[in-house]
């Protein structure tokens, strides 16, 4: 009797505790997705890169996009950052179309003003860092908060230093990018994207351009940010271990389509499709 009571006492709070943002989408009361790709297609000339993709990302959710090169993973991320326009289909951010606006009841192609408003919810870290080489680390991170969020110089620098501390580079404020290692550059780039406080952040193969011994430090930083929870993350990656560790959901794409998706457990230990089985074999 006593033991039973004890048990129920133990399980009760545990089940409520489990409703974290990351697992909310699995519960019955689904929040609206922060990002929703709806029948997205993309062609570059004759090359049909994305052949119809539907994908929802929920607030705070970490999804990993894996798949062979050329499967359109990066293009999917770049579309969200408005660096690439879908050939057809709709992308919603917070239920609002990214690439279209309404004018007198008609849907028209979005203008720059609409795109700017929409993309303020999105951040991106690039494979090749794309730091501004003529600016110090501190300026790289603090310029956008000053110019876009209209913070004062002091506020912006304070925020920037806070983010740089998070990535372990607050000792390098006055250093220029050319004096940093690849891993350090990428961590600055992460701080630079974080300081804008996006709701969803695209990490586009952020370790692919790094020397193998520098990959760890960058993944460690991303893992820490992921553990903070609030921000949705789209991790385009070839690091399977990392995807398994960080992602709530793993999406496997090939030839411009989503072939299989599920929890890291499902995808890595119990892959269903032959495509995925063959793909994973190459990483084991």
């Amino acid at each position: 009797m006593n033991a039973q009571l004890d048990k129920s006492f133990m399980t009760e709070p545990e089940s409520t505790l489990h409703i974290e943002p990351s697992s909310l989408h699995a519960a019955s009361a689904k929040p609206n997705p922060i990002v929703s790709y709806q029948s997205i297609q993309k062609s570059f000339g004759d090359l049909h890169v994305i052949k119809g993709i539907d994908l929802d990302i929920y607030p705070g959710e970490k999804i990993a996009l894996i798949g062979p090169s050329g499967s359109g993973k990066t293009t999917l991320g770049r579309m969200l950052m408005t660096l690439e326009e879908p050939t057809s289909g709709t992308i919603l951010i917070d239920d609002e179309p990214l690439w279209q606006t309404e004018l007198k009841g008609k849907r028209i192609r979005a203008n720059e003003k609409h795109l700017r408003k929409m993309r303020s919810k999105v951040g991106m870290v690039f494979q090749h860092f794309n730091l501004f080489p003529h600016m110090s680390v501190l300026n790289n991170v603090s310029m956008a908060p000053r110019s876009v969020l209209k913070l004062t110089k002091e506020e912006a620098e304070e925020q920037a230093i806070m983010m740089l501390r998070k990535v372990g580079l607050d000792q390098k404020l006055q250093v220029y990018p050319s004096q940093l290692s690849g891993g350090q550059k990428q961590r600055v780039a992460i701080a630079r994207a974080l300081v804008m406080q996006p709701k969803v952040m695209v990490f586009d193969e952020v370790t692919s351009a790094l020397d193998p011994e520098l990959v760890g430090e960058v993944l460690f930083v991303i893992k820490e940010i992921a553990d903070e929870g609030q921000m949705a993350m789209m991790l385009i990656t070839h690091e399977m271990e990392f995807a398994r560790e960080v992602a709530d959901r793993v999406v496997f794409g090939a030839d411009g389509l989503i072939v299989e998706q599920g929890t890291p457990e499902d995808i890595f230990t119990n892959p269903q499709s032959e495509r995925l089985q063959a793909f994973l074999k190459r990483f084991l």
Partner: protein
Amino acid sequence: MWNWDYVIELLPVFLKAFPVTLGAAFLGFTLSIVFGLLFALAGRSAFWPIRWTSRAIVEFIRSTPLLVQVFFLYFSVPMLTSFAMSAFITGVIALGLHYGTYMSEVFRSGIDAVPRGQWEAATALHLSKRKTWLSVILPQALPPVVPVMGNYLIVIFKETPTLMAITLVELLLTAKTEVSASYRVFEPYTIVGLIFLVVSLIFSIGVRRLENRLSQRENPGGGGKR
């Protein structure tokens, strides 16, 4: 044939004309940078009428001789608009416009050399168009083309005698006036040639020094793919 006494007599005369030549060259050069930037930016406008107009103007100016443009500005514009300018101002504007079209090509190459990743990073940080140009693109596009700009300063300097056609009293017109007064051709023209030679050489040494300094300062990496 060569009379040193006459040369000494000529020097103060040329000394008076020299600032006119130098001033026209420097102001024309400055204006060519302004026009060059305007043409380069307008040529990239997302709005096609601006893009096409800018390209048409550039093509038109480049396809007609500087001398014709100078005449047009000095003689025809006042007739068309009752708006007249001094020979000096006209000359500076003509040089600025003419070489601005060439300068725009220099800027275009500098802008094209900025890696695409820099534009993408600016987009990802939600920077405005203006901020992207002023803080990200131009600071990277301009330093590499400074030596080429310097060479255009030399070209413009050597092109200033064109302005004697609209009676600007620069070095060559001064020489010509002296010749017709003294009937001595040898000294005045030789001195003018020597002045151009010396100043051009000084300019090109300066440009080369600047080039060395910039290539030393250039820091590779950090900017993504080149």
